[in-house]
């Protein structure tokens, strides 16, 4: 059975990350920054990635990383979710890093581990581990790439873009420098103000091939599986913030001569939400533990599908309750609740919707669909 608790090392890491986020990334700062052209705070990223080593947690020590693992990475994501922090962590430290680890591209890992650069994986944020290898980009005989990938997360600040593409001999993974000729990035206006998306266009961009048909599909799938499984921890953090903030508000806020939090209907809804979040915590830890084992067998895949199917909806519900139970205040731009609502809703679509992951359970748990 998985270890579903947090180790003391993990709790120390959490405390360190939380301290940084409390200093650098209060809701007011997130709000102020999120409509600017540079929604990511480079100072915050440097501190997290370089000083805390958070970006290289899953990178082995010989490549400059912390040699920790995905359980620790998940704890960082919990805290990033709790802060609705705008950082390229999911795109760079989870998705791109997992691809580079799979490809064994040590030279590209080093600057990520050191927190000097970030990288992006050129898939839409909605890409899921169950889909076919993407066919939107093609490599020509000279090895240059052409094509388009829409809604790529964390693309804007990435120094390296990892591109799944169809090469001459089949699916392959390439690295393209973001400064390469023929590479263009077009920002999109995103529902989630804290995770900017951009479209990637490649016109004969020079690229370095990292993996070919034998390994590329498996590496990409492992990355998406890792992303989906760990995103559950981010969703847990979002949900926990929403519940805690709502509870605090309702203890303070008085109506009809009583704290609003003393009204039984509100209490029962929050008790149910708390129970769902307890479930999300167990499911997210289970997925992180399974992924950390390095085993990609059916138990790990099942753990990911369960966590992402459950946590995606739980975070949305928590954020919706947070807005509702704050009343009018929760509808204002000034209050941070909306940042979490938007993050939760976008996260629900990210790396496979809950419905997509439930559908995967049909095969994983032997619950066949009607003929």
């Amino acid at each position, binding site marked *: 059975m998985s270890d579903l608790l947090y180790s003391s090392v993990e709790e120390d890491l959490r405390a360190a990350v939380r301290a940084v986020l409390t200093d650098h990334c209060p809701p007011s700062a997130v709000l102020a920054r999120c409509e600017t052209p540079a929604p990511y705070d480079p100072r915050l990223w440097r501190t997290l990635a370089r000083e805390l080593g958070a970006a290289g947690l899953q990178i082995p020590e010989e490549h400059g990383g912390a040699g920790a693992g995905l359980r620790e990475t998940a704890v960082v994501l919990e805290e990033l979710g709790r802060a609705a922090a705008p950082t390229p962590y999911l795109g760079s430290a989870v998705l791109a890093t997992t691809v580079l680890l799979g490809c064994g591209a040590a030279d590209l890992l080093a600057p990520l581990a050191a927190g000097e650069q970030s990288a992006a994986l050129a898939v839409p*944020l909605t890409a899921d581990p169950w889909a076919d290898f993407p066919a939107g980009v093609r490599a020509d005989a000279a090895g240059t790439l052409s094509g388009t990938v829409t809604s790529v997360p964390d693309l804007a600040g990435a120094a390296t873009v990892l591109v799944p593409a169809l090469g001459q001999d089949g699916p392959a993974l390439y690295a393209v420098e973001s400064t390469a000729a023929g590479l263009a990035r077009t920002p*999109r*206006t995103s*529902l989630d103000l804290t995770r900017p998306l951009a479209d990637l266009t490649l016109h004969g961009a020079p690229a370095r091939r990292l993996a070919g048909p034998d390994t590329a599909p498996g590496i990409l799938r492992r990355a998406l599986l890792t992303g989906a499984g760990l995103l559950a921890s981010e969703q847990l953090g979002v949900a926990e913030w929403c519940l805690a903030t709502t509870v605090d508000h309702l203890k303070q806020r008085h109506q*009809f001569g009583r*704290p609003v939090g003393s009204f039984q209907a509100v209490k029962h809804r929050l008790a149910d939400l708390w129970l769902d979040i307890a479930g999300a915590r167990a499911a997210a830890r289970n997925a992180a533990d399974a992924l950390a084992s390095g085993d990609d067998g059916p138990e790990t895949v099942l753990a990911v599908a369960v966590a992402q199917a459950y946590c995606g909806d739980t975070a949305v519900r928590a954020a919706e309750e947070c*807005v509702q139970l704050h*009343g*009018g205040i*929760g509808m204002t731009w000034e209050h941070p609740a909306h940042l979490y609502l938007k993050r939760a809703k976008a996260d629900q679509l990210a790396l496979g919707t809950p419905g997509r992951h439930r559908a995967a359970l049909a095969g994983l748990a032997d619950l066949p669909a009607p003929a």
Partner: protein
Amino acid sequence: MSAAVEVRERVRELLAAHDPATTDRLDFLRARFDAGLAWVHFPEGLGGLGAPRSLQAAVDAELAAAGAPDNNPRANGIGLGMAAPTILRYGTPEQQARFLRPLWTGEETWCQLFSEPGAGSDLAALGTRAVPDGDTWTVDGQKVWTSGAHTARWAILIARTDPGLPKHRGITYFICDMTDPGVEVRPLRQITGEAEFNEVFLSGVRIPDAHRLGEVGEGWRVAQTTLNNERVAIGGQRTPREGGMIGIVAATWRDRPELRTHDLHQRLLRGWLQAEVVRLTGERLRQQLALGQPGPEGAAMKLAFARLAQELSGLEVELLAEDGLGYGDWTMVRPDQVDFLGRDAGYRYLRAKGNSIEGGTSEILRNIIAERVLGLPAEPRTDKDVPWKDLAR
């Protein structure tokens, strides 16, 4: 002569005397008011004929068919729907004569200064103070969720005139001049990015006692007339099958087969079913109303509508998958009127969150249904007999 015949006769006379094709818009509207065809159920001299309210629809239709201008009612919803019935019921003859005609013609629009940040659903806990000084009142406080405050000429306002009384008893109702130098209006940005509403800061605003509506300390009772008219307006909208949010989701479903999954299909079927049943519930309510049997479903329709709009708009974003990640525009704008459905899926999703908060939260509506419809006992109240100034806040 039956009321219906008389009304029809009046319409004919109005059109004969003021050819819409050649009459100035405002002149026509004033003439229509003076002919008693503004709101036929109002008294004569105040834009009406004391006729049954049900005759109004025919008047509107006939005048529209003749090419007459209307008074652009959507631009003055608060004035027409809430201020006017309150002035009619509680206003002095002087107030009625002064305010109703320009209100109806749209020359003067109105806003509502009821909600406060510190009160929320407990509207009667409001803290805006009005202090008498000879024959004027000085008002200080903060109001919120005020639509149209930046364009309104007048406001209906409730303020506390006696903090020593229990909260419902120390409130007085005023008409507030929005051009008073003590009135400051600031747009209130919402989670959609736009600012439909305003915050209104009142600092030493002077209101003549002649602009008080109802007796001193009777403001809560007066405000009930205003609020009851708000509820009726909300409950009375008719929607055709697939009207509203479900129509948008169903159209996307039909247009984009590549988005379909069994999960989404089952949820769409449930959503469609729910929407159809809400529509039938509303239709049943309207049939009861037409027979003069207003059912308690009125308050409940808003609850049902909010639940449905939120569920369907959330489903729509999921259905759109990658397209659901986008958002049209976060630029702060001040829209002239609310359009729940007009923009993109992200906007619909966010805006629908307000449906269960504005105009009575779903929690308050459930209390109302439980107590007034089902007759369940009220909760123990600790705030009824306590002086407002001593209430926990």
